[in-house]
């Protein structure tokens, strides 16, 4: 393989500030950063002032959607175990892990319980050996505290992180929205937002007891974020994530029975949305994920309560998140920590950094390029975005995985 040189860019590294210059890739790895002697045989990409950043590491996609990942600058995606059948044995994990290579690497998350039913532990140890980098409870919370306690002790001993969905199942039974004015006006079955804090509170108590590492995939309410903030201060091994939907939309987006805004957890009220932004700024939130869950019209063109939850999020992840930098909530290096470095460390996989010797997973980004999100023109499997027709800024120009252009 010929060396690849990217020149004339601005290099973003989660560890530091912007560096003017380029990156030299030799044998799939970063050989030099900044200014270097261009090897005669190298192929050259002119960045023309574009940002050169680590490829995004997406913690929690529900589908292997290569075109969406490539368009969104995602070079590694953790695949949720909610597949058909669920990823609850080592053969399925192995197959999923091989699905994306060489373009985008898929890192399967092992189902925490058999069939994701929340009752019996799945073969976590064997799935870890087969390539699972974490275990996940899937779309649902494990309602049985005994099962969750055993899961955390067992996974903790194996040194593997548990990724949990946090919504108390008793409160959220049949609910399709957050209780409040919008759900009341529309006549939608709803659950109080406190369902999230209740689930988080129990799981934090179990973390305290077992010492196991726990990541809440999406935390979306002020009260739950307060609990996590306090737990981190006490030194508990806890992290949490969020998707751009909960940062930029409130439950008002559901008005008109818009099924593209039917999400899990559901959109919250404006006060909770603002608390999520504050938690991004103060570091309580560690990860921004796409929650990518492409759903076609057969799952979305239905009465609201009958539609499947979920949104196509991979392609819009970076452009929407760049809004946080434009609003001066965080700087670029912190943004890429949230989108790339943190999720990679959390999963214990390579990526998220542009250090010499690291695997050359990187993207070229024009952070100012304007475009309009269009549900009818998405590159991925489906266009179910709640951000349809929103103007955004920030385009992924190139996605490079292991030194090879993707897409």
């Amino acid at each position: 393989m010929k060396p690849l040189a990217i020149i004339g860019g601005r290099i973003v590294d989660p560890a530091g500030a912007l560096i003017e210059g380029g990156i030299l890739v030799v044998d799939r790895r970063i050989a030099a950063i900044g200014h270097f002697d261009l090897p005669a045989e190298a192929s050259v990409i002119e960045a023309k002032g574009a940002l050169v950043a680590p490829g995004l590491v997406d913690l929690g996609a529900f589908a292997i959607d290569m075109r969406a990942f490539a368009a969104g600058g995602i070079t590694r995606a953790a695949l949720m175990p909610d597949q058909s059948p669920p990823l609850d044995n080592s053969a399925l994990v192995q197959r999923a892990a091989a699905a994306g290579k060489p373009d985008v690497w898929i890192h399967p998350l092992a189902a925490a319980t058999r069939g994701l039913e929340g009752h019996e532990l799945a073969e976590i140890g064997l799935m870890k050996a087969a390539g699972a980098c974490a275990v996940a409870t899937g779309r649902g919370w494990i309602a049985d505290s005994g099962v969750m306690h055993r899961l955390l002790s067992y996974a903790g001993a194996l040194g593997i992180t548990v990724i949990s969905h946090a919504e108390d199942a008793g409160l959220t039974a049949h609910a399709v929205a957050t209780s409040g004015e919008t759900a009341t006006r529309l006549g939608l079955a709803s659950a109080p937002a406190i369902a999230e804090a209740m689930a988080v509170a129990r799981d934090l108590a179990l973390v305290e007891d077992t010492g196991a590492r726990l990541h809440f995939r999406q935390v979306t309410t002020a009260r739950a974020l307060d609990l996590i903030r306090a737990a981190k201060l006490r030194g508990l091994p806890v992290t949490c994530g969020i998707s751009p939907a909960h940062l930029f939309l409130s439950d008002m987006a559901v008005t008109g029975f818009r099924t593209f805004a039917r999400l899990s957890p559901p959109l919250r009220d404006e006060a909770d949305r603002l608390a999520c932004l504050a938690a991004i700024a103060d570091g309580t939130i560690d990860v921004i994920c796409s929650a990518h869950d492409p759903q076609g019209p057969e799952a979305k063109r239905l009465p609201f309560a009958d539609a499947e939850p979920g949104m196509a999020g991979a392609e819009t992840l970076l452009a929407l998140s760049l809004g946080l930098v434009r609003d001066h909530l965080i700087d670029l290096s912190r943004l890429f920590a949230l989108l790339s470095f943190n999720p990679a460390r959390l999963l214990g996989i390579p990526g998220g950094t542009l250090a010499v010797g690291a695997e050359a997973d990187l993207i070229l980004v024009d952070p100012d390029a304007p475009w309009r999100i269009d549900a009818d023109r998405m590159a991925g499997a489906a266009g179910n975005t709640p951000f349809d027709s929103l103007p955004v800024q920030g385009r992924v120009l190139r996605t490079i995985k292991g030194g090879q252009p993707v897409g």
Partner: protein
Amino acid sequence: MPDAAAPRPSPDRPVDHVFPHRHLTGIYGLKPWEISFLLDEAEQWVALNRGRTKHDDRLAGLTQINAFFENSTRTLLSFEIAGKRLGADVVNMAVAQSSVKKGETLIDTAVTLNAMRADVIVIRHEASGAVQLIADKVDCPVLNAGDGRHEHPTQALLDALTIRRRKGRIEGLTVAICGDVLHSRVARSNIIALTALGATVRVVGPPTLIPAAIERMGVERFTDFDAGLEGADVVMMLRLQRERMAGGFVPSPREYHALYGLTPERLARAAPDALVMHPGPMNRGVEIASSVADDVERSAITEQVEMGVAVRMACLDVLTRGRRGVEGWA
């Protein structure tokens, strides 16, 4: 919907009024004078229906499809009679006979009804928002006959007409809507209609059956039945579904009746001439005592049914004026 055709914002209906909505999917979105316009239109049908020849041919040649995805006897019958009295060819599609049971999607059903060239479609469905979904896919006017917990606009119109005829006005009255507000599309449509027309609206019921943030719809919330009834001019009782009485939302029908059942003693707390209403069908002895329901002085329950036919005739007439080429409406 374009507001350009709307008249100047005055409670007095201008002569050249045009109802600017293609469908009637809910009371939400209607302006106060548009609601009053429909009530005014209904008055002529009350008169006709009380005469010997209950017939008018203005909808002759038009096809009205009543697509009821949820069981209903009274509302379906009311819409059928309304359509027939206006001369329309009325076809009923009941869920038991439909292909919905075979897995056809709602959109496909809508497209099918549309292809049969219906001139007006009346829809009831158990899912909130389902009627809007269909209305977006068909070329003819759609009338919502109840969608989930969302809206039941003709019920609110018939209730408003009943109140207006019995009390002479709606503005300034205090209306207590009592019972299972959480699951009630009747309550939601009535809250929007009555507050728009200037009434003070209270919702009264057990806290488990009052939806969150209901105050944001411009109503007062009461969990004490007696306090909620105090001085009310209209007491509107809601039906409590059997399956919600057995411990899920209230402990038992017996306890519900003791705490939230309308009895003559309870009614004495309301205004001396308070009107009692119920959308039916009633659970006698649960939310309402028979002696109250059957009190001809106080109860407007049978009158509500009568007004239902008139209001539905008005809606069918107004919504089809465009396609009938009525002058000023085409």
